[in-house]
């Protein structure tokens, strides 16, 4: 028998022994698998919903922008070039011979020097009516009407702003009271309070959760936003851009925390060679996550009094944690470590803002208010037994500037 076995290879015998080996898993392991499957399905559903929601919002936003641009460009085309080329007009000879300077009508371009067609005629062209050509009296009457319209606007509206050169009285863009038409640049910065919600994905981590719930502390951070904001109407606007946000929490392991699993978990996941718990000592981890966010928000604005208004916004943000640092305080020595790989890099956040807005002038606006963000996915990867969702609430100051040429 011994001789027969002599020629068996090392690998074959090892594989055979390994294949014979089996172990009975603990009874609660299936619970972990099941909760992981449920969680995965829920996360997929949430991501799908968020994706659909973002897609619909984006498509709606793009559709609105395209629609509005087309509307403006049509007006511009009418104003600048007319409905029909001048040669196609049947202009009476007496009108063609007129050489008197054209009356100055706001909104009419005066640059076409080589044409002998009076400006009044161009006004008619711009309005799309070529059925009849007005006389000088009719043209001046039109001028008077438009002047009175401007006077009316000046009287009733805080500060009307005329856009000459568009060739159509509909293009007298009288700004709304909020001075928030079109595209704006918004820069905000503030300090925030950061903490987390903990849930356990399997029963093993319950002990860790209870200990952390007792000893964890909040962490202060900061947030900076740079966004463009498009006003669809006086009250509704959309914003997108880039945010930087620091989140995190402080984990303290104290003398009373003698849970072996607690230690094992931290030792395993924080690359610590030694036990993080030592009798008589408190070990503190400062977990700070640095996030870059791309938000898409919808804002609702309302004027409260005079120049003061309020704006509330809600939206979703794609979040990328680009650098995470763990600061470990142990035996009065600070250690910095980069993040373990089990941290999730991409996340999705639900964000909201409530800002008071004060108009300085027709372009600048000051903002102050509250900014909040809640990460919808765990800070940790799915296989980590603790589900930790970061949230951040803070004060924010900002300035908004309306782009020129609108």
């Amino acid at each position, binding site marked *: 028998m011994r001789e027969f076995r002599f020629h068996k*290879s*090392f690998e074959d015998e*090892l594989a055979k022994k*390994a294949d014979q080996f089996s*172990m009975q898993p603990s009874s609660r*392991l299936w619970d972990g*698998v099941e909760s992981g499957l449920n969680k*995965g399905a829920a996360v997929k559903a949430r991501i799908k919903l968020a994706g659909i929601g973002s897609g619909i919002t984006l498509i709606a936003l793009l559709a609105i922008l395209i629609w509005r641009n087309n509307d403006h460009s049509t007006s511009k085309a009418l104003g600048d070039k007319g409905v029909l080329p001048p040669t196609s007009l049947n202009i009476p000879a007496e009108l063609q011979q007129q050489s008197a300077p054209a009356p100055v009508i706001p909104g009419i371009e005066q640059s076409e020097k080589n044409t002998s067609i009076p400006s009044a005629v161009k006004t008619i062209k711009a309005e799309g009516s070529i059925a009849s050509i007005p006389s000088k009296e009719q043209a001046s009457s039109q001028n008077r009407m438009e002047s009175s319209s401007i006077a009316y606007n000046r009287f009733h509206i805080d500060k009307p702003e005329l856009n000459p050169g568009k060739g159509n009285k509909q293009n007298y863009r009288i700004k709304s009271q909020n001075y928030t038409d079109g595209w704006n640049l918004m820069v905000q910065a503030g300090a925030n309070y950061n903490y987390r919600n903990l849930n356990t994905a399997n029963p093993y981590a319950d002990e860790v959760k209870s200990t952390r719930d007792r000893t964890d502390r909040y962490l202060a951070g900061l947030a900076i936003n740079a966004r463009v904001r498009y006003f669809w109407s006086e009250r509704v606007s959309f914003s997108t851009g880039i945010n930087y946000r620091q989140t995190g929490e402080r984990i303290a392991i104290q003398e009373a925390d003698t849970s072996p699993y607690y230690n094992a978990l931290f030792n395993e996941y924080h690359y610590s060679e030694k036990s993080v718990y030592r009798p008589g000592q408190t070990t503190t981890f400062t977990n700070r996550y640095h996030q870059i966010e791309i938000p898409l928000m919808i804002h609702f604005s309302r004027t409260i009094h005079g120049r003061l208004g309020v704006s509330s916004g809600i939206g979703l943000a794609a979040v990328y944690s680009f650098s995470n640092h763990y600061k470990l305080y142990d035996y009065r020595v600070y250690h910095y470590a980069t993040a373990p790989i089990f941290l999730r890099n991409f996340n999705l956040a639900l964000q909201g803002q409530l800002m008071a807005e004060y108009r300085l002038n027709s372009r600048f606006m000051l903002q102050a208010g509250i900014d909040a963000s809640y990460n919808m996915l765990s800070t940790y990867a799915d296989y980590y037994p603790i589900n930790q969702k970061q949230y951040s609430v803070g004060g924010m100051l900002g300035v908004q500037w309306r782009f020129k040429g609108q």
Partner: protein
Amino acid sequence: MTVRNSRLSQPIVRSMRDEVSLIKACIQQNRAAQKKLYELYSPKMLGVCYRYAASKEEAEDMLQEGFIRAFQKLDTFRFQGSFEGWLRRIIVNTAINILRKYQNLKYECDIESAGNTPAASGDAITSMYTKEVIELIRALPNGYRTVLNLYAVEGYSHREIADMLGINESSSRSQYTRAKTLLTKRLEELEAFGVKDHAGISLP
């Protein structure tokens, strides 16, 4: 993967038709079917994880994560070949990923010294209890253990191991030689103490 150890893929489920219908029910997210599949394969797969892990708790974490991944990817199983082999590959890959992420796999090995390895035969292993052999494998340093498991037990080539672990092919070879040397030495020591697998006697 080079399937050198074809005997590793012996079906656990007796009827192939039963297994196929069970897998199809699992693909449709039938929890009862998933639990049944888990109960069928988890003891054997935990044995696989145990060879890679430092503790039973870690092995159970690997198993849990591996089964979650397997159920999530089950729709990619083409019903060609053994399901156990497919599941085993996912479990092993999960174990390797977890080891790579959480542990500092140490591959320090002196290639020159690793070259002086006595030729090892399977005789010492054959005469050992299964549990003893597994514990001997687990007593090896992380890096050695991983390479030994992947090459000798799972049947991966050194090239594949190098790709999986992010090391050189030569490093994988030297790791394996070193692991084999260490294991053979310990087997011989145990054999000298008379620990042998006697016919008709099984461990509890």
